[in-house]
């Protein structure tokens, strides 16, 4: 009995970090999508923002190592991560300027942004690295993991908080978890957050009340660029330690789906991101059990579709009851 309990708790403690690792990029991008959605700007370009950040993080760290060889390698990784996030924010700014200043349709511009990012990364990759597939030939530094000491006496907790082999979780994984309460604080307890939500809820009324709607939307799109950028950096400097063409593989759209499934709430979005991370883990675990790979690749999109349907049905049920 106790042995069973022990084995189960260890398995659960090992599974959760795997789910978290798979969910982190989706979660970061979904938080970005949530904040811009709350400000009334649906950000379809999350995928492109992640892709650009992942690429420029690798490029930035390689260039930093080339230009500043004196620095310790960890600094190269940090400079690269900064470059990645800045690139994503720059692209988000482009989207914001085109939409807010020049009246471009937000969804069309967001789709164009994804195409731009896919083209630009492969173009620069093949021109600068000479390989269209990946930056495997380059030596990419990785952002460090955070190891929490002093947990040896609680093996489950140690496995949960430090992962397998006690290597610790990636820094950006903790950042993603930390971003949840920070975002809640921002949205609920600061003036900026309230203004931001008001600009999304009813832009005319907000403008009448003296809220700078346009500035709030700029802010929201920039923050979503930053968060999606962090998600992208995690992909190329944590999940893997290189850039591959199209390495986001639809995670930006899963993040968008997470916002919808989560009914534009913080808790719902986080739970939906975790669900998508879990479906990715499940598909790799089933792959180890010898199922046809093509069927396994269908699992995450099918889970997403079912989640969207369930969220829609739930919303409808609620509307039905209240009417």
């Amino acid at each position, binding site marked *: 009995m106790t042995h069973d309990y022990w084995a189960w708790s260890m398995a659960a403690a090992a599974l959760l970090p795997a789910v978290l690792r798979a969910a982190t990029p989706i979660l970061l991008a979904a938080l970005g999508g949530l904040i811009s959605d709350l400000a009334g700007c649906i950000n379809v370009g999350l995928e492109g923002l992640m892709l650009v950040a992942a690429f420029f993080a690798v490029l930035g760290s390689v260039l930093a190592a080339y230009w500043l060889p004196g620095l310790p390698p960890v600094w190269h990784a940090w400079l690269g991560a900064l470059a990645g996030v800045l690139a994503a924010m720059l692209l988000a700014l482009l989207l914001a300027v*085109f939409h807010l200043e020049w009246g*471009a349709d937000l969804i069309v511009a967001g*789709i164009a*942004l994804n195409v*731009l990012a896919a083209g630009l990364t492969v173009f620069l990759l*093949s*021109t600068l690295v000479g390989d269209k597939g990946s930056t495997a030939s380059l030596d990419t530094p990785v952002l460090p993991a955070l190891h929490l000491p002093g947990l040896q006496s609680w093996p489950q907790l140690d496995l949960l908080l430090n992962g397998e082999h006690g290597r610790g979780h990636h820094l950006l994984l903790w950042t993603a978890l930390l971003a949840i309460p920070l975002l809640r604080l921002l949205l609920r307890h600061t003036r900026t957050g309230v203004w931001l939500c008001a600009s999304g809820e009813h832009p005319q009324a907000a403008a009448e009340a003296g809220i700078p709607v346009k500035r709030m939307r700029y802010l929201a799109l920039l923050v979503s660029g930053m968060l999606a950028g962090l998600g992208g950096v995690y992909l190329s400097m944590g999940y893997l330690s290189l850039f591959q063409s199209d390495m986001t593989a639809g995670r930006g759209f899963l993040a*968008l789906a997470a916002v919808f499934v989560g009914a534009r709430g913080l808790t719902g979005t986080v739970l939906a991101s975790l669900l998508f991370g879990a479906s990715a883990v499940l598909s790799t675990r089933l792959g180890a059990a010898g199922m046809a790979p093509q*069927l396994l690749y269908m699992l995450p999109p099918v889970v997403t579709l079912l989640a969207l349907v369930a969220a*829609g049905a739930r919303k409808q049920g609620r509307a039905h009851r209240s009417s």
Partner: protein
Amino acid sequence: MKQATALPLQQRLQRQQALAQRLRLPVALAAGLGCGFLIMCAVSSEPLRAFLILLTGALPRLHWSAGEGWQLTRLVRFGAVIEDAITLTLLGLAVAIPFRARQFSLGADGQLFLGALAATVVSLYLPGPWFVVLSLSMLAACASGFLWGALPGLLKTRFQANEIVTTLMLNIVAVQAYRWLVSGWLRDPAGGFIVTPFLPASLQLPVLLVHTNVTVMLLALPLLVWTSWLLLMRTTLGYEIRVVGQSAAFALQAGLPVQRTVWLSMGAGGVLAALAGMHISHGLLKRLPVDLPAGLGYEGLLVALLARCEPRAVPWAALMYAYLRTGALAMERSTDVSREVVLVIQALVILFLVAERMQPALAGGWLRWRARRAEGGRHDA
């Protein structure tokens, strides 16, 4: 007094708007190409040569030699432009119709894969005279495209599931189902790599231009474009699609069947995407490889946006895009610039094209500048 001042202002505004409308596409194209050139300058050692090849590489070349006189070469390459343009026109129409209803359906990819698959299965396994089998293949392609297109529409009307996300997810499902079936059930054991058997020669679409794969699809194309235009502009469904696209709330108030319009528009797009798939399977490749590249649907999206979702403009946009793509292939072979720069250029063109307020602002500035210069000239004289 008031009249006298109001009239010139009105006239000026009208002229400003007319100029902005006329300049819109040329300015967007020039801006996109210009930005592309700047990016090429930043990374290439011979940007000017690369840019020229990009712009002229797809043209057939007329040249003279003493032995053989005037000769037209690179016709095969130009044939490739036309093959590409046919696929892109069909995909462009497939995206344009739901976009007119403001349904951002990105599912052309999945519909293309399923359409090609359905047509190939029917052609390979159904016995009978060629015209029966070929029309049944086309019917199967259209039906699968319609179903796969209407499904996200139904999910949207029934469950408010965002169509951008659902169509992308359905794309993955369709592409993986295609790969599963081609690598398992349909695989030709003598094929060498994973591929279906060749279609019977009688079922391949007849070729119009020798040494290329330009098939009778080219002749069917004007008909399809015209039908799409007719559907949008001259039928009740088309009217409903346009009204829903302009304002769904208004359409609902006016008593139009908004939900039916939404899924029907997406299903109609699916039919055209499936026909693009059949063009690929029965016209271009004659068989289906397992690694048929995904992502063509997005290029159809670019074409549709470039044509501003106007069916009659779609073939020209497709031709232009196919021309640039083929030029980009030539550029990639002979310079250090890779062909993906075309995606960047295209995305920028679309950004400039949809920036509604950018060009009126620019046109206003230009007219003001001209007026000031004319005034200055008068002062000088």
